[in-house]
């Protein structure tokens, strides 16, 4: 069953191994005061090809940030495997893990909260170099920092300023500069635009896309904003209550969503066109995402699914290939 899962990333790169391959990834948390475990991520497999951008979408509680943290080894120990540069990230420890971090970087949702308020912009952006290129002389370091600042749209005079002097959009540019300083192979973006105003959001989306193409970055892009994901990602994974509902190429997924949850998510996005918005007004998806402490039997989406039938409560649907997408639904 795992053999047929999500091979699109490999196919894209014609025989080359993917940049990242997660197999049967599961993350669980102990529930305080009980002997129970909460499954935040349940048997998730995906690949990210070289220079490919994979979007992970889902509502809060779907486990999308937990996947990002598991890949970066920031959360509790995950089960399964995450292959990167020929090694399983989940088994690395100490010096080996630290060495691997050079190639894995992250951009956070709240740019200001992710920057040390006591460090100047120059120090923040230079920190990865100090850490991983200790032999670099200060003059070369400064040259590299200034070049990166210029690339992300920061001015040389920002070098000695502090994070609190910047707006959210500018702070996100600082975070991007820091993340790209070591030219990582994989960039994890955790809701990189969702704290930004509309007029700034598109600036940052353009910048990230330019840099991704220029540096041929592989990107794991976590977001709840489907429009942003459509713009930024080539392939999309739809997550619900820790499980993969659907994986497919952007164009297939947006034009012909196969899973009822994908369809419901797309239908729920407000359309910024009053004529279309009023014409396409339908019955919204009922209910809310259930507690991961008591996930429904069978298909986890069935309690909200307009197509659910008896089989959905009894059998967990496996991912199967339907016209270019992979879908976990008995009714698809």
């Amino acid at each position: 069953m795992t053999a047929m899962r999500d091979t699109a990333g490999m196919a894209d790169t014609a025989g080359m191994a993917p940049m990242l391959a997660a197999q049967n990834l599961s993350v669980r948390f102990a529930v305080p005061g009980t002997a129970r475990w909460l499954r935040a991520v349940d048997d998730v497999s995906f690949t990210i090809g070289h220079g490919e951008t994979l979007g992970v979408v889902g509502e809060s509680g779907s486990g999308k940030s937990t996947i990002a943290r598991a890949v970066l080894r920031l959360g509790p120990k995950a089960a399964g495997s995450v292959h990167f540069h020929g090694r399983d990230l989940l088994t690395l420890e100490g010096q080996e893990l630290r060495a691997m971090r050079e190639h894995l970087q992250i951009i956070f949702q709240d740019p200001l909260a992710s920057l040390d308020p006591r460090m100047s912009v120059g120090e923040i952006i230079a920190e990865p170099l100090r850490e991983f290129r200790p032999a670099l002389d200060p003059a070369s370091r400064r040259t590299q920092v200034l070049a990166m600042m210029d690339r992300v749209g920061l001015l040389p005079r920002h070098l000695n300023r502090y994070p609190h002097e910047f707006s959210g959009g500018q702070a996100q540019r600082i975070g991007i500069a820091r993340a790209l300083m070591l030219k990582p192979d994989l960039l994890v973006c955790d809701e990189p635009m969702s704290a930004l105003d509309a007029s700034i959001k598109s600036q940052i989306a353009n910048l990230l896309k330019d840099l991704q193409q220029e540096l041929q970055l592989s990107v794991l892009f976590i977001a709840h904003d489907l429009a942003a994901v459509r713009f930024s990602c080539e392939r999309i994974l739809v997550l619900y209550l820790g499980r993969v509902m659907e994986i497919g190429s952007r164009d297939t997924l947006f034009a012909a969503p196969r899973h009822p949850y994908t369809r419901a998510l797309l239908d729920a996005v407000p359309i910024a066109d009053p004529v279309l918005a009023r014409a396409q007004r339908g019955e919204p998806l009922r209910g809310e995402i259930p507690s991961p402490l008591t996930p429904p039997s069978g298909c986890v989406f069935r309690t909200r699914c307009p197509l659910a039938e008896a089989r959905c409560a009894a059998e967990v649907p496996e991912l199967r290939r339907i016209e270019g997408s992979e879908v976990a639904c008995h009714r698809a």
Partner: protein
Amino acid sequence: MSTPPMLVAPLLEIRDLSVTYRGDAGPFDVVAGVTLDLAPGEFLGVVGESGSGKTQLLLALLGLNAGAVLRGSIRYRGAELVGARAATLNRVRGAKIAMIFQDPMTALNPYLSIGTQLTEGVRHHQGLSRAAARRRALEMLDAVHITEPERRLGQHPHELSGGMRQRVVIAMALITEPDIILADEPTTALDVTVQAQILTLLRELRTRTGVAVMLVTHDLGVIAEVADRVAVMYAGRVVETADVHTLFAHPRHPYTDALRRSVIPLSGALPARLPTIGGLPPNVAMLPPGCAFAPRCAYAFARCPTAPPPLSAVAAGHRKACYFEGTMAGRP
């Protein structure tokens, strides 16, 4: 300033309203010279980015801007609210003009049961008995489609999901049968499927009860879904106002046009790069002279920095605060 003729007298008439705070460098206006009407049963959308003054405008309608000086006029059914005594304000706010906040947890007391919080308003404003108030609370929970209303009355906020809490807040707002609901980003903290449910509910309640709604949001999609009429705010001023169809089809202010074009489409052609608005939203404590949008505007000319352009009629029911009279050619 002339107001477009209305068939019925407006419920709320805002005239040249300013909200001024005292800053280190002198006083500054977070709301500056806003003139706006709200008709009975109307769904008015107010859209703007952070710092545009949209929330401060809502707070001003309830006299809740702590530490600020209000100037101008707000008439509710002809009665002046600016400078009114607390006793007068208290007869209006909560009872006739109710407010829904972005985060339902801030509007709910974590220590009190849903039943106690729901009935507080009617017992205080209408002197209902405990039993009558309870009956009314059950009706309201039913009206906002909360399942098992009897059980919910005894529950506390933390026992409810985010969507359910916002429904309770809406029930609290409706229970005194107000004429006006002010909603400050009521769906921003919610997942997209739950947002669709809450927007559907607000629309339904407006149709069923005839309550007027003034909804503030940063999301043009939300505006397109629910609003009859729209006011666009920038740096404390209303820069354009029109019915929702006119505003999206024929925007006349460059800021409205740029905002509309920065929305990433969910279907159809996807641009390689997103149209952006250059620069950053201004700091209202340090506004440029003249039109505050001029430094970011693709159509700015010599007159723009001279004095803020007045909000003037371009057609019946359509007004803009902009000196540019030519055709906007989709400039970034």
